[in-house]
């Protein structure tokens, strides 16, 4: 089994499900890539925890304004129609159910939607940031991730073994091999790469993949 989607391709696939006019929070790091792949004709408004709605791409090097950053503390620019607000309003947008989509990375996802993405255990300095807040309140909480860990172990499990970020919060998972929904306490396979068999995909998944209607081919352009 060698073929799998690149991170950019996973981000592309996740971007196809963001509707025109959606308010979206992208987690720090890999999820930020989703913004680059908005389908033509659709416009999403991006939210960052530190108090900006409607930010655009990074500024040219040398033109950064360090009062204008995202939650990853990277310099950003504003799009027309942007807004500033303080931190309590920012998290009211999250917790109050006003965001349409949050897209986050994951160490592990359980079949009931539990997410572990903030801590790999008790060593070092713990740091949580906004991860535990973001998983509550967005209408859809999606995860983008490699299907397995770097050493080939399943990341989609019956239950998480790492410290939880949130309980029962994930609604959809975009992996390097498949698109999987979380419904009624189990994984439902929606799309998979045509090159992988259901049996092989199941072998790389730590919980049963349920079928609910046909499984579509996961087709993503070369990026």
């Amino acid at each position, binding site marked *: 089994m060698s073929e799998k989607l690149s991170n950019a391709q996973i981000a592309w696939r996740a971007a196809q499900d963001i509707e025109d006019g959606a308010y979206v929070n992208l987690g720090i790091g890999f999820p930020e890539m989703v913004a680059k792949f908005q389908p033509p004709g659709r416009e999403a408004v991006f939210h*960052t*925890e*530190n*108090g*900006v709605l409607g930010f655009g791409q990074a500024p040219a090097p040398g033109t*950064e*304004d*360090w*009062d*204008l*950053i995202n939650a990853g*503390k990277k310099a950003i620019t504003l799009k027309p129609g942007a807004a*500033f*607000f*303080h*931190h*309590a309003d*920012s*998290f009211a947008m*999250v*917790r109050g159910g006003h965001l349409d989509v949050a897209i986050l990375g994951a160490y592990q996802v359980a079949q009931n939607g*539990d997410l572990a993405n903030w*801590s790999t255990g008790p060593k*070092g*300095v*713990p*740091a*949580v*940031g*906004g*991860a*535990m*807040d973001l998983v*509550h*309140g967005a209408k859809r909480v999606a995860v983008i991730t490699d299907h397995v860990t770097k050493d080939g172990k399943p990341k989609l499990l019956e239950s998480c073994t790492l*410290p*939880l*970020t*949130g*309980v029962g919060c994930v609604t959809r998972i975009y992996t390097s091999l498949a698109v999987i929904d979380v419904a009624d306490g189990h994984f439902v396979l929606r799309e998979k790469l045509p090159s992988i068999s259901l049996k092989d995909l199941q072998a790389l998944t730590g919980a049963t993949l349920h079928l609910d209607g046909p499984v579509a081919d996961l087709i993503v352009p070369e990026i």
Partner: protein
Amino acid sequence: MDKRVANLAEAVADIPDGAVLMIGGFGGSGAPIELIHALIDRFLATGSPKDLTVINNNAGNGHVGIAALIEQGMVARMICSFPRSADPRVFTELYLAGKIELELVPQGTLAERIRAGGAGIPAFYTPTSFGTDLAKGKPVAEFEGRPYVQERWLKADFALIKAELGDSYGNLTYRMAARNFNPLMAMAAHRTIAQVSQAVPAGGIDPEAVITPGIFVQGIVEVANPQQEEILNRADAAYPEV
């Protein structure tokens, strides 16, 4: 009424040993670097204040601002959401050596606890952290069929914040994403000191544009062209300069 203070040293002169101190900013944006450095100057001259509890989103970056405050040994305890940064060495080393305490709080809960402190609301319920290690020992209650975790207000003896315009009544505006925690901390501290990039007379700020009303602010000190943590760190700056 005139809340303007003559200089930075006077602005931080009353902060005692053991104080609970909210410091505004998210990373370097909105961080009152000059007020923090004035506090370090006072400590170097007098040995005080020390044993501080500092509330901020982060725990310092490089060797300036909050990192420098920690490096001087003035901070006994940090309350923050993300004690990592591009260069978190100062906090990390002291934490791993058991020389500084950490209370880790999810970022939205941190913001809401500070707002609650400022609004006189001793506790509230949030879905954030339910079922996780950070909810251990906290009361849980169900509302409309969903479980929520009880969180308590956060208050401080002093808040050191950064704003853009400040008038003699203490009304404040902010610059872009440098707003972040600053307006919340202004509400939650017994005494709030704002460094402002420009001090103006009463009437110098359009009332429609005021973000923090002056009732939440006890002192303002003008620091024109304030320093920015990101730029200092790119130049490997340290405070005090060696």
